[in-house]
C-alpha cells in the first residue's frame, strides 16, 4: 500500500514536470494559473508546519515540538543552511525530552 502511494505520487510529480515542457505555453500562461500555482506551496508548507507541530492525531497539543520550531525559526532568520535548521530543531526536541 505504501509502495503504491509512493509510486503514484512520483509518477504524478514527473508528469507535472513533463507537462510544463510539453504542453503549449499558452495553456499554463493563463493569468489565473500563473497567480494561483505559486501560492499553493506557500499554503501547503505553512499548513504542514502548523499541523505537524501542534497536533498529535486529532488533538491540538503544545509540546517540545513547539520549542523545536521556535529554534528552527531563529535559525532561519539567521540564514542558517537547511541542514543546520533541521538539526537544531531535532537537537532541541531531543534535549528537552531528556530533561
Amino acid at each position, binding site marked *: 500500500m505504501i509502495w503504491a502511494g509512493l509510486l503514484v505520487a*512520483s509518477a504524478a510529480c514527473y508528469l507535472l514536470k513533463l507537462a510544463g515542457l*510539453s504542453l503549449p505555453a499558452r495553456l499554463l500562461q493563463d493569468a489565473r494559473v500563473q497567480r*494561483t500555482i*505559486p501560492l499553493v506551496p506557500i499554503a501547503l508548507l505553512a499548513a504542514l508546519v502548523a*499541523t505537524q507541530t501542534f497536533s498529535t492525531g486529532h488533538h491540538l497539543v503544545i509540546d517540545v515540538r513547539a520549542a523545536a*520550531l521556535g529554534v528552527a525559526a531563529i535559525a532561519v532568520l539567521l540564514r542558517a543552511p537547511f541542514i543546520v535548521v533541521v538539526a537544531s530543531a531535532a537537537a532541541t*526536541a531531543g534535549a528537552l525530552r531528556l530533561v
Partner: protein
Amino acid sequence: MSHARKGIVRDALGIGIASGAYALSFGAISTTAGLSLLQTCALSLLMFTGASQFAIVGVIGAGGSVWAGAATAALLGARNALYGVRLSSLLGVRGLRRAAAAQFVIDETTAMAIARDEVMDSRFAFWATGFALFGLWNLGTLIGALATHALSNPKVLGLDAAPPAAFLALLAPRLRAREPFAVAIAAAVVALICLPFVPAGIPLLIVAILVGLYGVLRSRE
C-alpha cells in the same frame, strides 16, 4: 572550457553539495517516519523534488494515509509545471532528451538556467546543475537513511520533531511579500481549525482547495 562555463560548473557543484547535505536530513526524516531504505531511496530517484518528498514522508510519519501524502506531494509538485513552461523554449529538447530533462525540472535548475544571457549557457547550466544535484541528492539520501537505520531509536535525537523545521526552511524564502505571508498564516490557522474534525491529511487538501479558489477569484479583479 570558457570562463563562463567554469563558473557555471563551480556554482552547480556548490548547489549540489548544499542539497546533498539537505538530502541527509531527508534520508533521516524518511527513515524515522518508518519508510524502508529502498522506499526512501526510491523517492529521491523517482520523485526528485524536495518539498514533495518531505511532504509525503511527513504525512506518513504523522500517522496520515499514504494517499493523503501522495496528493499533497503532487500539489506541491504543480509549481514545477510552471518552471517547465519557462524552460521549454530555452532548452529546445524533444523526444527522449525531453523525457530525461523533465526529471531535472525543479527550483534550482530553473534558477540556474534562466539566469544566463546566452541560450547555450542556459542549457549548459541546466544540465550541469541537474546532474550535480541528482547525483548528490541521491547520495545524501542514501547516507542519511543508512545512518538513521544504524540508530536504535531516532526519536532520542529528536528526529521525529524535525519535519516542521524542514517545511519552515522550504517556506521562508517564499515569504518575501505581504500577500504570501498572509496566505501562509491563513493556511496554518485553517489547517489547525479543521484538524480535530477530519481524517489525517485532509486539512492539507482543504487548504489547497481554498488557496486555489482564492487565487482564481483574486486574479479576476
